[in-house]
């Protein structure tokens, strides 16, 4: 009985220590990426190549989902607003919910599963096939050559993808609201323009997407770099990337929303 308790406590302790060690390693890894980012900007071709893989190839899924999310918002929002006789406010509802929340969050989740997992798998496989060790042998810094360009590519791509998502979503809401249901076009745009604030809403949305971009790519490159060099290890790391970054996005979103929108609206 007592031995079992001791064993349980010891397991808990070692588990917690391992988690903390990993967190500390991740933080040191983040600093290392920042310190070794010089190459990513001096040889910008490397970063451009990664923007192609992380950003350009994610565009299709982002554009299509943005359009559909906007169209669904248009349908559902109109249904509810109509009950209160304010169907004209559809533009406000669609624009505010996309620019403030849905754009950054859904684009971030899609980005994590589309690009984050690919980054982890790629770096993990490079490690498993000893390409990273080979680079070190040739005195090429793998963090500067492999990790930093991917990190910066993700950070640059994410705000652009979120902006595209929101823009397409608003267009989708416009299609459904104005063209299909028949909300007045003038009211749709003018009410939207009257209530969406460039600094409070749009800029905060961009900041959110930037924060998500940093979080997702950081988790992705770290999981890849830290993956056990086996087929199993890489697959586990890929799963962890998607799960951890999705949770990180949702948790960060709550914190950012609490910081950005509660004080601003009370005035």
């Amino acid at each position, binding site marked *: 009985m007592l031995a079992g308790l001791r064993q349980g406590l010891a397991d808990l302790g070692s588990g917690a220590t391992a988690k903390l060690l990993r967190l500390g390693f991740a933080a040191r890894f983040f600093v290392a990426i920042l310190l070794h980012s010089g190459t990513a900007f001096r040889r910008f071709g490397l970063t*451009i190549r990664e*923007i192609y893989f992380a950003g350009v190839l994610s565009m299709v899924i982002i554009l299509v989902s943005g359009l559909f999310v906007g169209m669904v918002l248009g349908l559902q929002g109109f249904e509810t607003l109509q009950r209160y006789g304010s169907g004209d406010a559809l533009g406000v509802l669609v624009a505010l919910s996309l620019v403030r929340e849905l754009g950054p969050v859904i684009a971030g989740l899609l980005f994590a599963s589309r690009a984050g997992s690919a980054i982890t798998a790629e770096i993990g496989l490079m490690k498993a096939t000893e390409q990273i060790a080979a680079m070190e042998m040739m005195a090429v810094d793998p963090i500067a050559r492999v990790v930093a360009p991917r990190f910066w590519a993700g950070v640059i791509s994410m705000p652009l993808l979120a902006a*595209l998502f929101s823009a397409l979503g608003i267009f989708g809401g416009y299609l459904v609201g104005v063209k299909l249901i028949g909300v007045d076009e003038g009211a749709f745009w003018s009410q939207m323009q009257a209530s*969406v604030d*460039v600094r409070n*809403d*749009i800029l905060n*949305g961009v900041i959110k997407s930037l924060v998500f971009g940093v979080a997702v790519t950081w988790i992705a490159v770290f999981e890849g770099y830290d993956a056990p060099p086996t087929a199993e290890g890489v697959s586990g790391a890929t799963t962890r990337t998607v799960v951890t970054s999705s949770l990180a996005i949702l948790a960060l979103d709550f914190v950012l929303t609490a910081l950005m929108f509660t004080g601003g609206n009370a005035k």
Partner: protein
Amino acid sequence: MKRSIIDIWVGTFVAVGFGGLLFLALKVGNLASFSTAETYQVQAKFANIGGLKVRAPIKSAGVVVGRVSNVTFDNESYEALVTFNVDAQYRFPRDTSAKILTSGLLGEQYVGLEAGGDGVMLKQGDRLRLTQSAVVLENLISQFLFNKAAEGKDSKDGK
């Protein structure tokens, strides 16, 4: 894939992404209406501003002619001091009156200007003399109830 094709795709992606941001800023957020056009500042005191907020529109005849820039409490007269910027292209007589109105039944509040007949025009730093406060629903209801109660009493006394 060839380097130049990747460059073109990334260029397109960045251009489209910034296009999306620009669309959000201009078409959705209406940055263009944050005109840096000349404005002049006018102040007005209200006994009660209700839910008037900074950046609320100033309208005259239904046209937006400016925005509220500041709302403060005046310690001496115990009234609200509302400062607003009026677009320089719109000129109003000095005896213009300001009312706090509500758009729709439950909409946002705005300041309505009604032009007077004075020949001298408002200029930077002027203060409007004639103002009308926001209608507070609770006051209206209590007034109505008091009136009703008084009426009831009168009719009883009359019998």
